């Protein structure tokens, strides 16, 4: 990591999502965007109906070029939901994917404080500001590539494990099927005829 400060100008773009009414039903996203536009480093801030939809992603991609953005903040849902989506979008526009940061103003804000609109708005602004603050210190990173051992292991030899193993093996993948009992089959092997076909289970 280079420690020498590089005073290149920060150009952050901020996108505040409505998520239909999931967010916009509780707080005004345009107000959050307007407020964010005055934070240091932010050169452009906008609200968008669905940031994750094609239209939202296209907006972000076009803006990266139009405003020459070098950081993107998406104030929307959980990173567990869409971090990969937005990393993909910014990298399609030529930005390193690690220069995108999300603020979770849905799961952890409007959905959790639906009856405290004022509190939710303050929190949405703070969460957006925090993502912008982190964005100022983001550095571009390269993914690490690792080799792949082309062998699979399936643990449990019931009907689910057997199907998995057969499908993997039919794709040509060497598969070890591990079963703790002396026989495979699981519960299904113990059953009489099974619905919906009412044929014998084994």
């Amino acid at each position, binding site marked *: 990591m280079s*420690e*020498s*400060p*590089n005073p290149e100008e920060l150009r952050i773009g901020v996108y505040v999502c409505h998520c239909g009414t999931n967010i916009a039903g509780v707080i005004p996203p345009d107000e959050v965007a307007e407020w964010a536009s005055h934070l240091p480093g932010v050169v452009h801030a906008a609200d968008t109906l669905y940031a994750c939809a094609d239209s939202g992603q296209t907006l972000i991609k076009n803006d990266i070029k139009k405003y020459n953005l070098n950081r993107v903040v998406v104030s929307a849902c*959980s990173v*567990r*939901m869409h971090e990969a989506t937005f990393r993909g979008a910014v990298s399609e526009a030529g930005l390193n994917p690690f220069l995108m940061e999300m603020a979770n103003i*849905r*799961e*952890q804000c409007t*959905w*959790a404080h639906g*009856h*405290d609109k004022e509190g939710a708005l*303050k*929190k949405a602004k703070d969460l957006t*500001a*925090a993502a912008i*603050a*982190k964005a*100022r*210190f983001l*550095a*571009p*990173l*390269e*993914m*690490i*590539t*690792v080799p792949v*051992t*082309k*062998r*699979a*292991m*399936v*643990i*449990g*030899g*019931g*009907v*689910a*494990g*057997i*199907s*998995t193993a057969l*499908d*993997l093996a039919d794709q040509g993948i*060497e598969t*070890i*099927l591990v*079963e703790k*009992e*002396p*026989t*495979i089959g699981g519960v299904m092997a*113990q059953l009489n005829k099974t*619905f*919906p076909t*009412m044929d014998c289970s084994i």
Partner: protein
Amino acid sequence: MVDAARHPKIDVRTYTQVERVEGFVGNFKVQLREKARYVIADRCNGCGDCAKVCPIEVPNRFELDLAPRKAAYVAMSQSVPLLYTIDQEACIHCYKCVEACGALDAIDFSQEDKIVWEDIGAIVVATGFNHFDPSVIPEYGYNQYPNVITAMEMERLNNSAGPTVGNLIRPSDGENPKRLAIINCVGSRDKRFNPWCSNFCCMYAIKNAVLLKQMYPEIELSIYYIDIRTPSKGYEEFYERAREMGIKFIQGRPSLITEDKKSHNLFVHSEDITLGLVTEYEYDMVMLNQAAVPQPDVDSVSSVLNIQQSPGGWFMEYHPKLRPLDTPTDGIFIAGACQGPKDIPASVASGSATASRAGRILHSDEWEIEPIIAQVWEDRCVSADGKKCGICAKACPYNAITVEVGTAAQVTTAKCHGCGGCVAECPHNAITQLHYTDAQILAQIRALLADKPEEKIFAFRCHWCSYGGADMAGTSHFEYSANERGVRVMCSARMDTDFIYEAYRLGAGAVLYSGCHPQDCHYITGQLVGASRAERLQKIFDKMGMSPGRFRIEWISAAEGQKYANVIDEMQQTIDEIGKEKLLAEIESMKPEMEKRARRMYEVPDVTDASDYSDKMKIAMTLEVVDIGK
């Protein structure tokens, strides 16, 4: 079953258990214990001569103890592989089997468990489910009344391959029952036992009723139910057919079963909601549709494979909608009923789907992983100056750090999983974690506490669990105080003491230190590093005279949304009870001490520039691609 055993690409290892899993996507190392069967696999031809001469009989678990088996046994005649096993617990070492096996010489009492390691690119977990034991519901009389049986026992009793060759008989007298009651939701949808619906018992209740009606046209069949759940394709039609066949459906959950001591007939006491009556009908036999429950060893399997559990102990998916068969660990997937009750079509579908998820990885030559790993600032590491240290290496759950006096600590990129434990533990701030640097985290803390910090409940959350728990609170719309502000790091091991001091220095009303439960930790022992640090902090704050509750340590899983909401609300209550004036005074009086303690981090490159968020930008940053030292 046979297809799997015959497939040239499938290596079936029965009587085998997974004991350890190391490594990461594309590069797992799995330790297996192949238990000794005392039978040599390549020699046994499955003739069963050993079982014929074996004098020992024990109950056959496969037949739910309804029939015996020998100490030399196969579970069932269709076992795959058809390979005998000698049950050492039952065996009396008479060696009659050895004699009977004769020239094949397949029995070998000197066999021992074999430990083998396998290199694996991707893992699918399909460990299935178990059956609820209805004897814990005393009012149903299972294990007291001989003619009360479970659904699994029914599956064996009306099975032509079962112990009675498909002749359904009453255990009390060997007669065919003329009136049979089937009771749904036994241990399911019952807050005393399991809140969930077991998914397939409505359908197998109907299935067994239809089969029995075909076998014994005179039989009277009643199914007691709360709701009949038949949502899949063709299921409702099947239910309709059963009604047309004259099978009775009684809406009500039976409250009691009593027995006539002489005839061993049974009386089912239940409300009939449709008729608005309390009923008591007599039957010859009762079948209990026991709930599907997680496997008894689910905790140890979760910890070996690093899988989290949903409430109740089912394996938890990474995202219920978008990644329903992935676990948080890249390269490990879940299929079948281990995730929650699934019938056969759904289990097969999820099996095929995971084969495709795993195939994405296994068909690639290389796989990408996030570069959020640890990096040493060599000039800050005291080991480079010839001092003994190595604290970082002790914190690392993966042995990814080597420290030799005279050179700076070295992180092996491929081994580092990015918990950040070493980063927070290093007393010299000589390590950073990419994408979770001190500067980045401090900038967030400062932004979040810029305005009225004394009103804020500041939460440190780990990515995998407590951040997930906060998401779950939102997804479930469990509302909690909007004064909560949080940052996310990968593991509680990354929650540096400096961050906590800094939050208090800035005037936070309360601070939550939260991560996963120890058994759920995504980084083996990362949580332990985080937990012991949190306990140290608690002692320090106690000594400083901090009001109880202003620092709180909680372990919250990704499934515990309600807990997350409750904890935040309790913390809100704590600061409300302290009162603003007293709180502000306390914050002010502790500021110098917090500042002194937090000072260490101001030495970190970049951090000073993060100090005042509202200040004009004067930040240190680099747009060069960081060399991660592969």
